[in-house]
């Protein structure tokens, strides 16, 4: 089995990746502007609903329930898709999913495919696999198109080109789009013009390419239906115009019934883009003669999700409906943007899902890339307790490191154990305090500490520290003859 989450296994540790991102002023400005905007809209739209909290509770309950009976609902989904004329395939991991999709395309002698935005396909590295097999994938989401043409990687779950501003988009289009053929001269950086250029370019593809690939926002068990939530219309193009449609769907996308959509179609648009409803939702089941593709395939993907299910608390990460609200509110994401996470899944949700999908073998710095401020938990439409899961994952990683001799001897581990020892015995506390007061002497200059050694160096790179006061509270208490209780 080979689980892949994009290229996460070879991504640099978060502090290193963050260093690069923090040095990019343009990136930080772009990220800040965009997230401020979406956040404001999201707050307005969720504040408008008197039953927002009740919807969140229902969303959490439905998703948690579904995972508890995932086999039942997957079975039901497969039955209904098949009954409606669709084909269901099962992929244990990324490689298998890539192979299945490619085989379907090759069986139809397909050389090109049009794609609707789907992070799942980035997760399994589908585009690379298709290209290696002589098939050209065309991204049709405006942001994904920009990212693809600009040879970059997505930096946000919902608005993947958030890190690119309009002038940069114009430059990418000028370099990569056949503007003269499309009848465009002097392309400016006005967003409407840029969108128009993309529209004309992609329209040609929509009307000619016969195979479409999508993901799914939701897969409905009691109908075998698939739901795509979008804004631009390229989803509708890819879902209805081609002859063949292949949907790659993570097994956690299942919801029990059509009725459950009444909850998620409220939670998702308001959280993701701050709209009461996004422009287009497409729902379809299997094949409908005379309307849409004559051949429909669903590839149900595991790729580590069953591994995540094993974690009692961490499995809640699978409840995620990919709204991106946690990214928009995260103060860490605000500073670094998405690339620093080195994963298809970024921000707070990325920090808990990426390492878990990979059984904590990779992306081990991600759970530490958080100040545990809790803002993500407040905005999550399905109430995933992200800070709690981050702490649990940190615990698993620490215990794993402690299980080796080398791990036990790591400075952090030794330091933490020493501290725990001092804290367990109050007699030792006073001695420890005295030691600290003594040790700090050589670091105090001009009444302040500006230069700490070793692990603590990071603090003093940009911050000062006041020396430990001569008298601790407990000494003041004693000295003032206060009644000391045992």
């Amino acid at each position, binding site marked *: 089995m080979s689980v892949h989450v994009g290229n996460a296994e070879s991504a640099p540790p978060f502090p290193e990746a963050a260093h690069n991102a923090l040095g990019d002023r343009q990136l930080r400005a772009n990220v800040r502007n965009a997230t401020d905007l979406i956040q404001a809209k999201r707050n307005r739209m969720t504040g408008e609903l008197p039953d927002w909290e009740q919807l969140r509770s229902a969303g959490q309950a439905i998703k948690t329930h579904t995972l508890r009976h995932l086999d039942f609902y997957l079975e039901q989904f497969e039955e209904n898709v098949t009954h409606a004329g669709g084909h269901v395939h*099962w992929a244990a991991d990324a490689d298998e999913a890539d192979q299945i999709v490619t085989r379907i395309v090759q069986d139809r002698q397909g050389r090109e495919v049009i794609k609707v935005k789907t992070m799942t396909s980035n997760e399994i590295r589908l585009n690379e696999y298709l290209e290696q097999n002589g098939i050209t994938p065309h991204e049709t989401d405006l942001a994904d198109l920009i990212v693809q043409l600009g040879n970059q990687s997505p930096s946000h779950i919902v608005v993947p080109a958030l890190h690119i501003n309009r002038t940069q988009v114009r430059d990418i289009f000028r370099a990569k789009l056949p503007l003269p053929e499309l009848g465009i001269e002097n392309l400016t950086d006005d967003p409407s013009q840029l*969108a128009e250029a993309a529209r004309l370019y992609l329209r040609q593809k929509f*009307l000619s390419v016969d195979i479409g690939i999508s993901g799914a926002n939701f897969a409905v068990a009691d109908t075998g239906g698939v739901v795509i939530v979008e804004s631009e219309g390229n989803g509708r193009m890819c879902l209805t115009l081609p002859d063949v449609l292949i949907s790659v769907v993570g097994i956690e996308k299942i919801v029990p019934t059509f009725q459950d959509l009444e909850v998620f179609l409220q939670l998702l648009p308001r959280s993701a883009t701050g709209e009461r*409803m996004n*422009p*287009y939702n497409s729902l379809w089941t299997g094949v409908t003669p005379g309307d849409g593709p004559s051949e429909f395939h669903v590839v149900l993907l595991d790729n580590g999700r069953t591994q995540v299910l094993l974690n009692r608390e961490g499995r809640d990460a699978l409840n995620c409906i990919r709204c991106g609200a946690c990214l928009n509110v995260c103060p860490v994401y605000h500073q670094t943007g998405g690339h620093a996470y080195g994963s298809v899944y970024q921000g707070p949700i990325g920090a808990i899902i990426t390492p878990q999908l990979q059984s904590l073998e990779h992306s081990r710095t991600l759970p530490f890339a958080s100040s545990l401020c809790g803002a993500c938990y407040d905005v999550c439409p399905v109430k995933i307790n992200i800070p709690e899961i981050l702490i649990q994952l940190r615990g698993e990683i620490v215990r794993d490191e402690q299980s080796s001799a080398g791990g036990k001897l790591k400075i952090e581990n030794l330091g933490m154990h020493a501290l725990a020892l001092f804290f367990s015995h109050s007699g030792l506390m006073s001695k420890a305090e005295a030691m600290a007061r003594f040790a700090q002497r050589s670091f105090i200059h001009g009444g302040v500490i500006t230069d700490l050694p070793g692990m603590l160096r990071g603090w003093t790179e940009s911050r000062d520290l006041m020396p430990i006061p001569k008298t601790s509270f407990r000494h003041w208490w004693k000295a003032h003859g206060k009644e000391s209780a045992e």
Partner: protein
Amino acid sequence: MSHASKSAIFARIRAANGHRSGDPLAEWESIPRDYRTCGALGFEDRIKLFDERIRHYDGTPFYSTGDIAADLANVLSERRKHHLVVPLEFPQSWLPAGFSFTRDENLSKQQLDIVDGVLTTCTLGIALTGTVVLESSPQQGRRAATLIPDYHLCVLRKDDIVELVPEAIRRLEPIKDRPLTFFSGPSATVDIEMTRVRGVHGPRTLDILLV
């Protein structure tokens, strides 16, 4: 190969969930749903809200005088649309004279690309979100027909407007396995610097005639 994977996946799911007894359907029934499932607005207020919300997302509502064909003629003249596609069973009596209507008898993509627009009925509207829902049917047409043309004019009965999303979903229950499309304003994107830009793909103008 796929079957082996399915077994493996199911085995892992069952191992992770333990051996749960408990009927999923009964458990699902007992999920607390304390959100609103019933609107509070009266008929007139619902229409007003729908009007406001449709406009917010750049759709345009028009109000029928009682003579639907005449109403459609007015809107189409105003919009300068002359040649439209109509679904196979769109009511003939509603089609005004003086325009060119082509029935959608499996028109090709290219044929759909050169008309001025498409005219359909629809299943229902949602006031709170300014949404119109179409189903794949002979009256409302195939999905491609409301996708490729640049202009969509839709006839919606006021009686078919509900206030809340749950009300809409529950009304759609009998036809839940048909292709359904929810429209909330015309195509838009916010992918460039979060600036909402109209009309990337799909009809860039959406008009609704309320009858």
